[in-house]
Each structure stands twice: as C-alpha cells, then as structure tokens.
C-alpha cells in the first residue's frame, strides 16, 4: 500500500498550495514587485461602461495587458485614452484571482513622446475646426481703446509684469487679473472658469466687466502648454462675448487657443501692444486734427473773402447804372412843358370846333318845330268822334242786356213748369196719397214695422193715418218720423 503514496518520491517534497493560496501568493508578488510602474504602449480597445470605470488594453507588437482606471481616477486623467494612442500609463499591477488574470490599475496617462502628442493635437484641432469653432466669422474686433482689460494668467511671474509694463508705457488702463494655474492639470479648468467668470460679470458692477481679455502664459514645453489645448478652454473662448487675445508661449509655440482667439499674439508683451494704442501718438494726432480744423476753416473763410473781393471788383459802379436813366429823365422833363402846351392847344381847337355848332337859335328852332308838331296833332283830336263811338257801344250793350233779360225769363218759366210736373209726380207716387185711401203705417220705437214679430218686440207702437199719428198702448212717440225721409214707405208696396 505504501507505494500508493508518492510523497516520498524524489523531488516531490515541495509544499502543496491550494488554488487560493497560490493565487494570493502570486497577487502578493505581483503587487509587491510592480506597486508603481510606468508602462509604455499603444491603447487598444477602450470601453466605458455606465459604471464610470474605464477599461482598455495596452499593447505592443507582441503582448497585451488589461488596464483599468476606476471611476474617480478616470475623471482626473490628463489625457482621455483613445484607441491607437501611444501613451505612458502610470499605475500599479494587480491580479484578479477569480479569473486568473492580472491587470494594470492606471492612475495617470500621458501621451508618449512629442510625436504622439502632436498627432493627438492635430486630430483635436481638425475636429474642432470641423465644428466651426475657428471660423473667421466668429472673430470679434478688438475695441480700439478698452476701458478695462481682464488678464487671465499666473499672478506672479514675468508674464503679468511684462503686460503691465507695456500697458503703462502705451496707455495706462484698468486691469483685472484673474489668477490661474498656467500648467498642470488645474490649468485648463481654471482658465475655462476665468473666461466664463469674466463674461458673467455685469458691466458697471462692483467688479467692472472687462471689454477685452488677454489669456497669457510664457514659453514652455508642449506638455507645459497642454492646458491651452484642452477642449473646455477652446469652447469657453469660442463662447466668450468679450474679445480675447491669446498670448501663450513663444512665437513658435502654437496651441489650440491661438486658433479660436479673436487675435493671436506671439508674446505677452505683444498682447499689450494689440490691446491699447499709444497714448502719446493719439494726443499728437488730436493736436494735429485741431491744427487742420483751424487751418481748414481759416482757409475756407479766406477763400470766400477773396471770392467776395473778386466779385466786388466785377460789380459795375452805381452811377454808371443810373446815368442812362438820368439822361432820359432830363430829356423828358425838358420836353414836358412843350408837350403840355401842344396838348392844350389841340384840345382847345377841338372845343372851339364843337362849340361852334352849339347856338341858342338852333335850340329855339328845334322847340318851334316841336310846338308846331304838337299843335297839328292836337287839332286832329275831335271830341265828337269819341262820343259817337261811345253812343254806338251803349246801344249794343242795351240790346244785349234786353236779350239776356228775355232769355232768362223764358228759362225760369220753363224750369217752373218742369218743377210743377215733378211735384205732381211726387205727390202721386208718395205714400201719403195711399193713406188718404185708408191705409196706415205702423212704427215701433220710431222704425217702420212690417211684421207681427217685429211689432211684438217693440216697446211702443204708433199708427200713422192720413190726418195724423196715434200712439198705441202708450204716450205718443216723439215725432221722430219727421226726420225720416218719407220715401222709406216705398217698401210697403
């Protein structure tokens, strides 16, 4: 049975591990040995699950290592890992015993070498450009003379001093410094915040809102200037309502902020020069304008004076204008008495011609002729002629009147006869003749009654005979029948 146990076999006296024990031992070795490593490699597949942790592969030509950056750390990474990026990842190695895996816990990632960094920068630049953030239409003109200049930079160091010195030389202004870190991981968020913060100030508030911003930093390595390449900074500059000058690094350094700023300046000193004009130059210019104004006015007046004098010379003398008229007046006034005399003579001659015909004898002759004509007419006027005519007309009138008299008498006699005839006719036809013959008319309440029914209804009856009326059963009715036309009795027959 003893050979069932192989414990004592040569080389077989090493201790036994359980899986957990060996996994734990491996973990201890790996974590102890690789507690802080920098690994250079290309980023492979990247995955960002909703948990916020970041998983990616690091690889080179022959090997792959799994890398993870926990949620809190992933947000603080200086560089966002992207597939294909050449990076140096800093962190520690650990194992994951449950799956027999080992992995790198990444604390930071930096681009590996300038080439990789520049490639990344170029990629980012193209993406932002495609978005239109660098469009020339977005560039705002700088104010000619800003009242307040906001400077976003490190509050200590040569940069702010250079800017202030140059401003002082050219045109001292109010300057508000927003202190920021100009390198390192705090740089981009602080610069972003400063740009947004200046824009958020209200004009005329306790903190005056600048009308020009300068973002400045001295020269440095690509890594030092990296904050000014960050997307948050670029977007803040693009969104800024206040015109902004970028002055980051030296002339040869180009950061993305230079693409998006309204004006790029090679150095901080140059930014101050872009920001304000030279005061003394302006004072000289104003003085010069004043001189030009005065010269122009006096020249204008001088020219007009000369023109006036020229015109005055060309103006004819007053006497020469009146001479002619005066001469005409003289001549006319000389001729006036003679002309008057001539006119009077002419009129007098005419008067004498006319008055020669006007003599009393002529008037008397006219009167005599008129009297003769009157006498002649009067002689022809004989009263007998008139009275004869009147007598004749009288006779005619008498004749006519007697004829009228005769005719009307005849007419009246004719009408009288006709009336008698008609009366006789009436008498014959009237009901009273009938009464003479013994008939009577019965009336009830004044109306003629023709039936026994109507007689029974009447309150009082009356009988008319030829010689009068007799009431029946009552006092005699009022003689209303008089008003009734007797012709009503026609209906009795």
């Amino acid at each position: 049975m003893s050979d069932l146990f192989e414990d004592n076999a040569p080389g077989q006296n090493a201790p036994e591990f359980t899986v957990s024990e060996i996994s734990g031992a491996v973990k201890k070795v790996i974590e102890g040995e690789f507690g802080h490593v920098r690994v250079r490699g290309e980023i492979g597949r990247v995955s960002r699950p909703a948990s916020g942790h970041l998983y990616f592969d690091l690889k080179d030509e022959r090997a792959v290592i799994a890398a993870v950056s926990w949620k809190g750390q992933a947000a603080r990474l200086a560089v966002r890992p992207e597939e294909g990026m050449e990076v140096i990842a800093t962190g520690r190695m650990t194992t994951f015993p449950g799956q027999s895996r080992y992995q790198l816990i990444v604390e930071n990632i930096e681009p590996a070498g300038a080439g990789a960094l520049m490639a990344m920068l170029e990629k980012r630049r193209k993406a932002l450009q495609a978005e239109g953030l660098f469009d020339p239409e977005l560039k705002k003109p700088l104010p000619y003379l800003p009242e307040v200049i906001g400077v976003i930079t490190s509050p200590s160091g040569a940069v702010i001093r250079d800017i202030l010195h140059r401003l002082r030389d050219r045109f001292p202004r109010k300057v508000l410094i927003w202190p920021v870190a100009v390198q390192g991981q705090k740089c981009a968020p602080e610069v972003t915040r400063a740009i947004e913060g200046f824009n958020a100030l209200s004009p005329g508030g306790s903190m005056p809102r600048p009308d020009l911003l300068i973002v400045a930093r001295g020269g440095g390595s690509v890594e030092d200037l990296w904050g000014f390449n960050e997307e948050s900074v670029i977007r803040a500059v693009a969104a800024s309502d206040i015109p902004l000058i970028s002055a980051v690094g030296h002339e040869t350094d180009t950061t993305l902020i230079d693409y998006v700023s309204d004006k790029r300046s090679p150095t901080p000193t140059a930014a101050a020069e872009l920001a304000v004009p030279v005061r003394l130059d302006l004072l000289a210019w104003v003085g010069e304008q004043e001189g030009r104004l005065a010269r122009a006015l006096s020249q204008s007046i001088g020219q007009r004076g000369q023109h006036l004098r020229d015109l005055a010379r060309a103006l004819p003398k007053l006497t020469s204008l009146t001479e002619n008229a005066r001469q005409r007046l003289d001549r006319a006034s000389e001729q006036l008495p003679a002309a008057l005399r001539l006119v009077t003579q002419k009129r007098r001659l005419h008067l004498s011609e006319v008055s020669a015909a006007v003599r009393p004898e002529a008037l008397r002759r006219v009167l005599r002729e008129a009297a003769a004509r009157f006498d002649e007419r009067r002689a022809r006027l004989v009263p007998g002629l008139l009275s004869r005519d009147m007598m004749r007309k009288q006779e005619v009138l008498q004749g006519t009147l007697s004829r009228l008299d005769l005719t009307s008498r005849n007419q009246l006699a004719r009408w009288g006869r006709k009336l008698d005839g008609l009366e006789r006719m009436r008498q014959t036809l009237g009901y009273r003749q009938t009464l003479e013959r013994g008939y009577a008319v019965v009336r009830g309440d004044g109306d003629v009654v023709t039936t026994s029914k109507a007689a029974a209804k009447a309150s009082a009856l009356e009988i008319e005979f030829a010689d009068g009326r007799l009431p029946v059963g009552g006092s005699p009715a009022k003689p209303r029948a008089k008003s009734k036309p007797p012709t009503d009795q026609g209906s009795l027959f």
Partner: protein
Amino acid sequence: MSDKKVSEMSFEQAMAELETVVGQLERGDVPLEESIKLYERGAALKKRCEEKLKEAEEKVAAITLDGDGNPTGTKAVEGL
C-alpha cells in the same frame, strides 16, 4: 454728421468723427454757415478725445477666489 452727443461718445467714435469733420472742412465744398458748425463740432470732438486720453489711469487689481474658484472680490495689486 451723426446726432450722437459728443459727451457720450467713446474715444474711437469721437476720433472717427473728428477725422470725418476735418476731411469735410478741408475739402472746402461746404457752405460757410455749415463750415462754422463743422468747426465747432470738430472742436467739441477734439475736446472729447483729449478727455478720454487724459483718463489714462493705471489701476491693477487681482480677483480673489474662494475655495471653489468663484470670484469673491478684488484686491489691489502693487509693485508689478
């Protein structure tokens, strides 16, 4: 000639109009009355420009920030 009050103009506006006024006056094609008015306006504009140039006062302040990076006020900066 703009109707804006000279006393409300920025330096740049006053400067631009002063330039125009001088140019108009120098061309000499404006009536005399007008040119006197132009001169007076030019003189006012020049005065405004000078005023703005005299307002050349340096005042440097730094913004103070709280722990979260929000501005809390300003403090004067000297010796830079």
